[in-house]
């Protein structure tokens, strides 16, 4: 919330070109190209198996593409780095299935995600500074979990876990946030709150949201990319893509 990462000389914060990845002959990603500008909020939609999760895996270094380029801030080749490196460079990720550390409390989860040195010795002798303490409190308030400070993450409701994970993502202070189905399992009210939160975040960060919930996407009010069979089918405003005949056929029409 405090830092603005978008520097004027960077053209695209994330740039995918001709990326292909196949598993045992099945092309999960096929010649995919994507360009995210600094500070952009982008929604990605597409039917199951369109390659959304694989795309996330490729950006975050979990999966290496068979071919194609994946660039961060124009000139960092992400395919050469692993997950931890990429995370430390400033790409944060929220999983589709909320993944928080179940046997740690809300506070401890946030402490863990807190931006800072990830070195073994640093963590061994780590002492929380006052500012950091306040930051965690601030985020807890933001995600509405102040009451649950000492509750174990596993005892949270699904929606609360989603929010905790978003909180962890924010406190990590990444430049790019990859958010996979944040509205899953949320009530309508929570969904709208989440959309509002993401929009707020996107004022200072680049955010990529993968989502099924069309109301949610509408609430985000941003550029939309439609994936189908591993490549981009359409791109533009939600109104534009939802009037696209192809999109209606493969996705919306169903």
């Amino acid at each position, binding site marked *: 919330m405090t830092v603005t990462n978008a520097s004027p000389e960077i053209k695209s914060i994330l740039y995918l070109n001709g990326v292909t990845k196949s598993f045992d002959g099945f092309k999960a990603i096929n010649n995919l190209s994507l360009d995210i500008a600094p500070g952009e909020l982008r929604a990605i939609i597409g039917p199951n198996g369109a390659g959304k999760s694989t795309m996330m895996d490729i950006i*975050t270094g*979990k999966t290496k593409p068979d071919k194609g380029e994946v660039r961060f801030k124009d000139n960092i080749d992400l395919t050469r780095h*692993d*997950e*931890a490196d990429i*995370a*430390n460079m400033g790409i*944060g*990720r929220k*999983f589709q299935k909320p*993944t*928080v*550390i*179940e*046997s*740690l*409390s809300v506070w*401890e989860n946030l*402490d*863990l*995600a807190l931006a800072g040195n*990830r*070195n*073994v010795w640093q*963590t*061994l*002798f*780590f002492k929380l500074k006052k500012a950091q303490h306040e930051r965690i409190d601030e985020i807890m308030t933001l995600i509405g979990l102040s*009451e649950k400070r*000492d*509750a*174990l993450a596993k*005892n949270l409701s699904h929606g609360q876990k989603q929010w905790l994970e978003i909180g*962890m993502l924010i406190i*990590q202070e990444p430049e790019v946030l990859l958010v996979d189905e944040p509205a899953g399992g949320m009530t309508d009210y929570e969904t709208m709150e989440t959309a509002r939160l993401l929009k707020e975040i996107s004022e200072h960060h680049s955010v990529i949201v993968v989502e099924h919930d069309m109301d949610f996407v509408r609430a985000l009010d941003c550029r939309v990319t439609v994936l189908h069979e591993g490549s981009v089918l359409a791109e533009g405003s939600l109104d534009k893509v939802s009037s696209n005949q192809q999109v209606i056929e493969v996705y919306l029409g169903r």
Partner: protein
Amino acid sequence: MQHRSILLKVLQTSHGTTLISILAAAIVLVPILNLFVPESSFLHVPTFTVTVLGKYLCYALLALALDLVWGYCGILSLGHGAFFALGGYAMGMYLMRQIGDRGVYGNPLLPDFMVFLNWNELPWYWYGFDNGFFAMLMVLLVPGLLAFVFGWLAFRSRVTGVYLSIMTQALTYVLMQAFLLNDFGFGGNNGFTDFKDIFGADVQSDATRIALFVASGLFLIGAYFLCKFVTESKMGRVLVSIRDAESRARFLGYRVEHYKLFVFVLSAMLAGIAGALFVPQAGIINPTQFEPVFSIEVVIWVALGGRGTLYGAIIGGLVVNYTKSFYTGAMPEMWLFVLGGIFIISTIYANKGVIVGVILSVIAMTIFQPLAQAISEDFYQFILLAVVYAVLFSSAIYFDRLYDLAKSRIAATNWFTNLNQAPHTEEAKS
């Protein structure tokens, strides 16, 4: 809220602290009961018992070391016995060199088994072991180095879960095969024995035995606090996150392999210390310590005591080994049945809070015959058994109540908060 969390902290630490206090008391009391209480008194603790207790403490230290990697980082090592044995062998080499020319063959340089094999000179890897300081360094470095190399290769290529367990098991199995070879230069099948001196003192003397017991206790307590420091630091939370959701930890930017390697090497070194303390008290080190069965037994000490709780590992190590001593003494043919039963029951019920069932069943199996026997034969033994059972019962009760705690340190907090917050949350809803 604030006052409750203070209370919480007291409660949370109390189990470990209680255990450590008991251990500290034992370190003071046992030598006193041995040295100053006349042998005729039933309160007298024979030196033999002191040594047995000392060995239990070493096992407890080994269990603690394993719990650090398994309980907190999810690395189930089925080869921790190898690190224990390597530490023991390093100590054994020092003790062998201390024998000097007092061996059967009277060779001032070569240990008896080398003379027996017609070796003419000391192999290079035996150099320096006549120096106590060097040997103690090796007690740490040899297991540490093995853990480092193995861990570096395994964690780097992201070998996890059962794959890793199987590899660690193969590691100790192969080491056992190697140490069984005479040509390997570590006494083959017989290992090392007939030790004479340790740091200038007679290994057999009462004073040395008591000193070793005290040292074992002190190292155990020291290791407990070291592990406590690690697990309660931010690193502890990183380790737990690796255990529960490894990829999440990676995406948070933590170098998982570095953390694993650190904790694995630390744990191997602690295991090495345990082995080094064990050997002079046991009076022997041989390849049986490398047997996969031994390593996997250590796992069950931890599982029974409660993985992810440091004091649980210690209690598990003490209880299972006491039970083992009892059975192998009284009904050796029953022991493997009992051990097998412990394995099954403690894993099935580990997540269901019925660990009390395990302990009760062990007690039930153990209690009747020895008590009857003890009353008729030896009053001291009777007292000792009664005390052990009292401890077992109380720990059973306390395990039952704090079952969740058996899964992780933090789980205790949860149990407590849930208990206290349950009405709160309902209020909040209404």
